């Protein structure tokens, strides 16, 4: 049952939020030992929240647009008094003294938080295998990864543990796991959703967004969590989007570009599987059948995105993660002096991938290398913004695959960091530019696993993106995706 149906039934008193919750808790109890979508299930707190929602309905008041809807939260979002780990030993046992803005907005809309989901440590990874608490499995095939870094959130929705989930996306960490698990994943415009209480990874790239089974639910969540927040100085000061109201408007007359460099075109990035390219072309055909015109467009700098990202994101991470020093919260490994304690704590608390990125970022920012690497990478961001602006003068939206492949096997890519990083090649440009992008399931690949296609648009083009996503969802449902 969709979030919209649950909310409608709970608000009208047809169903109790506590009953909806128990169904989901039963599914979690039955199979999360195997899937490991959650780091923590907060059954008792969820029961209290659901009971309050029911009391609100009984007293004749409206609990809100997501009344009684079970939601899962990526474990890098602060929840007051509830352990928040980032899947890292360095934060194990820490209970934040405040709620993230998205957490309070969901609660105020009547949603019921059921737990904190697993991720690659500090959201650094593309498979959820970098978690200090063990990997998450893909609910569709337990031998495969769910993608990452928000793999637990994607798996929780795909497995029916929660109706909705929130993730964070720094280089594709919502969209790629959504594609691997066959659900919808949205990265909004940078600044459209408050980052207050989201534990920082790459502050100029990080953005929170929803996972859901359908496009309409995704739109409903973004309407709830979006909008200005004075506690995030990068929050865009504008009214929230009307997204649910535009879902049925279609794409008649829209101009949509296939971004050739990221869709298997010559001179573009290599390694995108032919079945994934075929699904992307089928998506273009479906949009054309619905009245859009399709154009091949080129953004040459998009091929530089991966390199630029793996300089910018680690640089910001090395700075952000300097706060884990054993002084104020989380792990402390005692030593004779504060300096030795800082190093002993960080050495014991961080996993290998986090150390690798801190090292890379520290190097890219260090004297003598700053201009050659970090400075150049920032200029690539400008170049990409210019080239995307030129393209968006001609087309409304762009289409690419979400990821180069379908879900790969657990352990397949852990030996060599670069083979993991290339997963993000199609999703990274939107983080570097701050533009919104959505991944929508569109059929399956040769291995029978879901393929996601990505719709990109300029800043604040969320309504158009959702219009196109709704068209693709409907075409996929009618079998055009098969």
């Amino acid at each position: 049952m969709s979030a919209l149906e649950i909310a409608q039934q709970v608000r009208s008193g047809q169903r109790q939020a506590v009953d909806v919750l128990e169904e989901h808790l039963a599914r979690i109890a039955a199979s999360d030992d195997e899937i490991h979508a959650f780091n923590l299930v907060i059954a008792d707190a969820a029961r209290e929240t659901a009971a309050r929602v029911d009391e609100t309905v009984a007293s004749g008041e409206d609990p809100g647009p997501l009344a009684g809807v079970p939601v899962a939260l990526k474990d890098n979002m602060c929840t007051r008094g509830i352990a928040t780990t980032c899947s890292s030993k360095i934060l194990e046992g820490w209970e934040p003294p405040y709620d993230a803005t998205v957490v309070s907005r969901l609660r105020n809309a009547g949603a019921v938080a059921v737990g904190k989901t697993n991720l690659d440590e500090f959201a650094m990874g593309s498979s959820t295998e970098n978690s200090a608490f063990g990997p998450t499995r893909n609910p569709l095939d337990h031998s495969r990864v769910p993608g990452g870094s928000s793999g637990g959130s994607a798996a929780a929705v795909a497995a029916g543990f929660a109706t909705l989930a929130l993730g964070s996306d720094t280089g594709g960490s919502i969209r790629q796991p959504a594609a691997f698990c066959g659900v919808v994943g949205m990265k909004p415009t940078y600044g459209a959703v408050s980052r207050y209480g989201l534990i920082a990874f790459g502050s100029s790239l990080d953005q929170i967004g929803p996972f859901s089974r359908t496009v309409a639910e995704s739109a409903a969540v973004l309407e709830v969590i979006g909008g200005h927040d004075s506690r995030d100085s990068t929050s865009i000061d504008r009214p929230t989007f009307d997204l649910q109201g535009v879902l049925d408007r279609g794409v008649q007359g829209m101009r949509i570009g296939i971004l050739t460099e990221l869709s298997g075109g010559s001179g573009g990035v290599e390694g995108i599987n032919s079945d994934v390219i075929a699904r992307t072309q089928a998506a273009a055909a479906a949009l054309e059948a619905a009245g859009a015109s399709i154009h091949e467009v080129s953004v040459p700098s998009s091929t530089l995105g991966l390199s630029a990202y793996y300089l910018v994101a680690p640089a910001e991470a090395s700075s952000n993660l300097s706060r884990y020093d054993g002084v104020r919260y989380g792990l402390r490994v005692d030593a004779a002096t504060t300096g030795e304690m800082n190093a002993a704590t960080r050495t014991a608390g961080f996993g290998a991938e986090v150390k690798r990125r801190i090292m890379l970022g520290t190097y890219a920012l260090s004297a003598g290398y700053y201009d050659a690497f970090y400075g150049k990478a920032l200029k690539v961001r400008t170049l990409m913004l210019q080239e995307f602006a030129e393209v968006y003068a001609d087309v409304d939206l762009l289409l690419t695959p979400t990821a180069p492949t379908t879900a790969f096997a657990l352990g397949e890519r852990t030996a060599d960091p670069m083979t993991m990083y290339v997963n993000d090649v199609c999703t990274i440009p939107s983080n570097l530019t701050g533009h919104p992008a959505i991944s929508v399931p569109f059929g399956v690949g040769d291995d029978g696993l879901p393929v996601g296609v990505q719709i990109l648009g300029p800043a604040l083009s969320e309504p158009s993106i959702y219009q196109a996503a709704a068209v693709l969802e409907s075409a996929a449902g009618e079998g055009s995706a098969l």
Partner: protein
Amino acid sequence: MSERITRDEVVHVARLARLTLTDAEIDEFTGQLGDILEHAADVEALDVGDIAPTSHPLPLTNVFRADERRESLDREEVLAQAPAAENGQYRVPPVLGESQ
């Protein structure tokens, strides 16, 4: 193994980042960071002379809020999360130890 970054540079960067690496980790990171920097050679080689850098996707400058008194976090609740606290403050080992 790539020669983009030396073993000594890895040791130096680890010290800057307050990480203590084993010999095996130093060897592993020297190779892996070299591979990643090799991949970044396309960015390094780019001629982007007069392009201005973008450090942030939004054209924001200073952001102000109304100068109103607001409640801050509860000190007891915050200090309860510290590894060690005393007299309303964080407690740490000596900053200048014998090794200094």
